[in-house]
């Protein structure tokens, strides 16, 4: 029916699509974390990319000590994710909330997180060295379905990310803390009236977002390398995705992440990897000029 060339092309394209989906799912994790924090606490965290790497580095540190089987990764998640939660919680509670008393708190928070980002980036370089590190895949090997070839790694990343996203959504809608987070995002005054401790919710929100981005870091560091100085670039990417989807919009973040993940994969496939960044910037510029509030604007 189709010529052999076309068939091969379709297979290649499906590969690219899968890669795009798996990347996109991690971007979704990152975007959701960022949009959550910004929507609820209005704080902007420049160190976000360095938290992504923190997840990767925590995992890497554990791997030197433990084995590399699937069981190994379960341990990693059990140990690292709570650590990330703690880091995020402490950061909001001790570093950020004291700044909200000032009139120029937004800028001060940005300065503090920028300083923190530079601190962490250089700390990673000093502690872990400048060389790139990598994590072993959760699941090696490939899955063959008829003529289609998928790597288990991509599948695992996609599934785990999706799991994370679903857990996130469930938490927001079904747990008391989750509902409190939504309440604070929608109406802080109302939240106070109802007896919600806003400081604690801010800290919990920050902690949740740190877990999400760190989790994304662990996942993606299997496929790509951990680069100590990539914090800035990762933060910018998360930002572009979030801005494209609309700051504060969960649905927007999800949609944007997958669109960008897939778009990036195809642009890279057709034109070459370095053009992916250019495509991102064009997208960002376009967003700022045509529709600055992103796809789904401001909302919950």
């Amino acid at each position, binding site marked *: 029916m189709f010529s052999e060339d076309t068939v091969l092309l379709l297979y290649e394209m499906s590969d690219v699509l899968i890669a795009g989906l798996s990347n996109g799912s991690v971007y979704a994790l990152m975007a959701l974390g960022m949009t959550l924090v910004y929507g609820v606490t209005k704080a902007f965290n420049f160190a976000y990319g360095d938290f992504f790497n923190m997840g990767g580095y925590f995992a890497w540190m554990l791997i030197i000590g433990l084995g590399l089987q699937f069981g190994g990764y379960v341990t990693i998640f059990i140990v690292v994710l709570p650590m990330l939660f703690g880091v995020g919680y402490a950061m909001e509670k001790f570093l950020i909330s004291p700044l909200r008393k000032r009139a120029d708190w937004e800028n001060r928070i940005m300065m503090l997180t920028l300083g923190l980002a530079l601190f962490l*980036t250089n700390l990673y370089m000093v502690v872990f060295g400048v060389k790139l590190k990598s994590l072993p895949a959760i699941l090696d090997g490939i899955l063959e379905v008829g003529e289609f070839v998928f790597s288990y790694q991509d599948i695992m990343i996609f599934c785990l990310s999706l799991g994370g996203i679903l857990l996130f959504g469930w938490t927001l809608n079904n747990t008391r803390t989750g509902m409190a987070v939504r309440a604070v995002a929608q109406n802080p005054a109302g939240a106070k009236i109802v007896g919600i401790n806003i400081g604690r919710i801010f800290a919990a929100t920050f902690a949740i977002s740190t877990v999400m981005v760190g989790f994304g870091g662990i996942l993606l560091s299997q496929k790509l390398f951990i680069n100590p100085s990539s914090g800035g670039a990762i933060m*910018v990417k998360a930002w572009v995705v979030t801005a494209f989807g609309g700051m504060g919009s969960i649905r927007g973040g999800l949609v944007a992440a997958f669109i960008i993940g897939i778009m990036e994969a195809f642009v890279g496939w057709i034109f070459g990897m370095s053009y992916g960044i250019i495509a991102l910037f064009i997208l960002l510029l376009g967003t700022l000029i045509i529709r600055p509030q992103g796809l789904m604007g401001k909302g919950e």
Partner: protein
Amino acid sequence: MHLRQMAAFIGISYGIMALLPILVGDIPFIMNILVMCLIWAVVASCWDVMMGFAGIFTFGQVAFFVIGAYGSAILAISHNITPVIAIILSGFITAGMGVLVGLPCLRLAGPYVALVTFGVHMALQPLLKGEIGLAIGSGGAAGLLTIPPISLFGYEFTSSNIIPTFYLILLISLACVLAIMFMIKSHWGNAFLALKDSEDFAMSLGISAFKYKLMVFAVTSFLTGIIGGVYGHFYGVLSVRMLDLDLFSILMVMILAGGLGHFPGAVLGSFLVVAGSELMSPLGAYRAVTMGALVVFLVLALPDGVMGIFLKWLNKDDSANPAGSFSNGTIT
């Protein structure tokens, strides 16, 4: 701060600077550091005005500095324009860039300006290193190595005749800082402060926050471009390594140490930090880590920097600084 206090502070700081060569004029190493102090004082002041006074969080300062430096150098090398004119032209080019960047993003919320200017910064390095850069004469990855020094009436201001060069740069730096002071204390500056307290009232007077912010953006980029050019012609070499992100933490420490939003503070801050940074160079790789940690510490512990302490000691109510006039109540 009142105009008189600001002017006095600037006068004293620069005055002391002007006298230092008497003590250390024969130590080129220290003289070089002093020149750096003077140059960074302008960059830090510009960034402080943008962030602390105009309330715009921008990553543009370093980018504009580099654009100013490269612009002037390229004009001098590839187009044989004499450095003095090249510097001035470069200032205008940089100001143009500032307006170009400012126009779309100043209307947007805080983080967006930061994002766009960060993008400009990130884009600058590959641009200068790559083909486009080579085409306009940036020297690519190797940078520029043969930038001619400033010469007036046949006299060359290089690092060999460090003392006259020092005084020239001191004058330029002082002029830039004074320009900033007049901009803040002008009719427009005071109006802008009124705007921050009550938009409706200011609007009724016909003052547009957007226009003022754009003007501040343009003026600070102009001054930063100029001092960037001066830097290039003083050092004679330029490379894209100047765009490393660590520079931001150093600049932030300067502003925070001086006092965010307390204008002349950044001048003192830059003097302190350049000196301190030299003292810290034995730390090697740990220096950058320390700088980052310092930023976090300063933002939390010393929110108004040295100027804050100074002002408290003077016991005067700093009505010129919006951040300082906010009372201690928590926002409910």
